[in-house]
């Protein structure tokens, strides 16, 4: 039996003016390229959950030729985000028309199961842990069910845990690999459509398992840069320090997402730098505390906001850059927000900035509220869930003002001159780093060639 797992990836923008602007902005384009080249960790995990006697092939949708014959899989699994879900459905329909059964899974499928079921022989909701092995058994026995419920807890413990099949990436040109160390985030922001929607609570992987996964990825890829596919990696500083001490000897470079509270722990910050952390992405959301009221149930982001600039300084003073993320279109935002973000970026010394528009992903509390308030522009707009296209009526500005403000802000912060200025600022920070920040690499096992003269 042969199972084909097909990943849908890539960054999309639907609004023509924004798409046209995007291609002229180097920093915007660079990050888009990076995201587009990340392998699907979800499907590699599905592969890990597949019994050993079943052949598994991993494909990116870009690998598939529209005009070529479909590969003769016995079963196809497709995972996709909301923005690409219609393309996933079309691909699923095509396989099914050729008599190849299809299973759909992923976040969007979990949030819109009835819709997804129309395009699949079976769907998996939540994570694949606890569902996929049973699904394969049932398929082989000719009793495939229409829906399987994955586990929402204990996914990193036996018997449900499975190591992702990084070996499926061997020979492919990936230079970035994702590893997940946790699932969920207790901040529970109203707009979040990430892994907290498929977990019952925050779950953290045992350090030993996370390190083992990194070692497995290192064995099959050349010089990978790691992205930890977490929503909030350092929520538990004690776990975080154990993890950082464990990965420091591996000599890797990596990126992750966490919240700004990481800046309160000096020892943790030192370990970030020593373990090869190059950047942490932090959802600042908005520069002003009053804009953040009610964003998360405990108002934590509002309480943190006054310390944003100091936190960024403390993190970046270790040579670890902060990618500051802002969401425009919050109910508190007026047309002044765009200039306020630009001003904050200038004052902060942030090297990288990510600005996205508030997006009511299906299944989120935000979607439910805006639907209730009659503020959604369309009933179904999944292909516009790109984080750059506006899908709702903002509270204190028009849709047109929001779109125009975003374009203005993109031009102001993503242009070559500004990015160069931020790069120089980062270099000046690096010059102040103590030499102990840099570690000596592990000794080479290879013989040293004769020294060559550079000129």
């Amino acid at each position, binding site marked *: 039996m042969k199972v084909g797992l097909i990943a849908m990836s890539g960054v999309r923008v639907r609004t023509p003016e924004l798409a046209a602007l995007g291609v002229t902005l180097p920093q915007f384009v660079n990050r888009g390229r990076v995201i587009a080249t990340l392998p699907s960790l979800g499907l590699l995990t599905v592969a890990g959950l597949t019994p050993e006697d079943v052949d598994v092939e991993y494909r990116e949708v870009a690998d598939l030729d529209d005009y070529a014959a479909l590969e003769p899989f016995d079963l196809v699994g497709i995972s996709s985000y909301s923005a690409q879900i219609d393309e996933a459905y079309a691909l699923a329909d095509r396989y099914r028309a050729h008599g190849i059964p299809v299973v759909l899974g992923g976040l969007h499928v979990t949030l819109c199961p009835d819709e997804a079921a129309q395009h699949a022989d079976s769907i998996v909701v939540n994570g694949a842990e606890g569902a996929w092995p049973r699904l394969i058994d049932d398929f082989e026995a000719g009793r495939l069910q229409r829906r399987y419920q994955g586990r929402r807890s204990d996914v990193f413990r036996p018997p449900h845990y499975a190591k992702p099949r990084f070996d499926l990436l061997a020979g492919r040109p990936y230079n970035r690999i994702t590893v997940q160390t946790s699932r969920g985030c207790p901040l529970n922001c109203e707009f979040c459509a990430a892994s907290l929607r498929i977990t019952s609570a925050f779950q953290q992987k045992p350090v030993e398992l996370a390190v083992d996964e990194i070692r497995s990825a290192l064995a099959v890829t050349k010089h990978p840069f790691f992205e930890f596919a977490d929503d909030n990696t350092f929520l538990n500083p004690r776990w975080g320090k154990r993890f950082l001490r464990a990965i420091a000897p591996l000599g890797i470079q990596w990126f992750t997402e966490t919240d700004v509270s990481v800046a309160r722990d000096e020892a943790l910050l030192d370990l970030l730098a020593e373990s090869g952390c190059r*950047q942490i992405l932090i959802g600042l959301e908005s520069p002003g505390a009053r804009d953040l009221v009610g964003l998360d149930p405990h108002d934590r982001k509002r309480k943190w906001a006054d310390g944003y600039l100091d936190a960024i300084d403390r993190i970046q003073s270790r040579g670890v850059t902060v990618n500051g993320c802002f969401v425009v279109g919050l109910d508190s935002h007026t047309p002044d927000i765009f200039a306020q973000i630009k001003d904050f970026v200038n004052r902060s010394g942030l090297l990288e900035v990510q600005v996205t528009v508030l997006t009511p992903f299906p299944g989120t509390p935000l979607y439910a509220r805006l639907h209730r308030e009659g503020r959604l522009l369309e009933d179904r707009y999944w292909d516009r869930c790109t984080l750059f296209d506006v899908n709702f009526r903002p509270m204190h500005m028009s849709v047109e003002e929001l779109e125009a403000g975003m374009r203005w802000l993109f031009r102001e912060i993503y242009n070559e001159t500004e990015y160069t200025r931020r790069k120089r600022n*980062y270099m000046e920070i690096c010059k102040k780093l103590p030499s102990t920040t840099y570690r000596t690499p592990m000794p080479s096992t290879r013989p040293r060639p004769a020294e060559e003269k550079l000129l």
Partner: protein
Amino acid sequence: MTLERELHRLLSRVSIKNVDDVRPEDDLVEKLGIDSLTALQLLAAVEKRFNVTFPDERLDEFRSLRDICTHVRNEQEKQR
């Protein structure tokens, strides 16, 4: 320590990689897979160590040890 050896040492320290077999003409991104931030850290370390400056608008152009070495030598020449 020669300029060449010192550049190797700095590259090794900022990239946390063994760079013994990096040749002068090697593209550092292709050879070592170093990311853009590490590249900036390397240039900053070179600026600090040799008291030179890389032009801001050309930071992306210094992709090999040879590129960096040539620039450092040229800058040092100008300072004499």
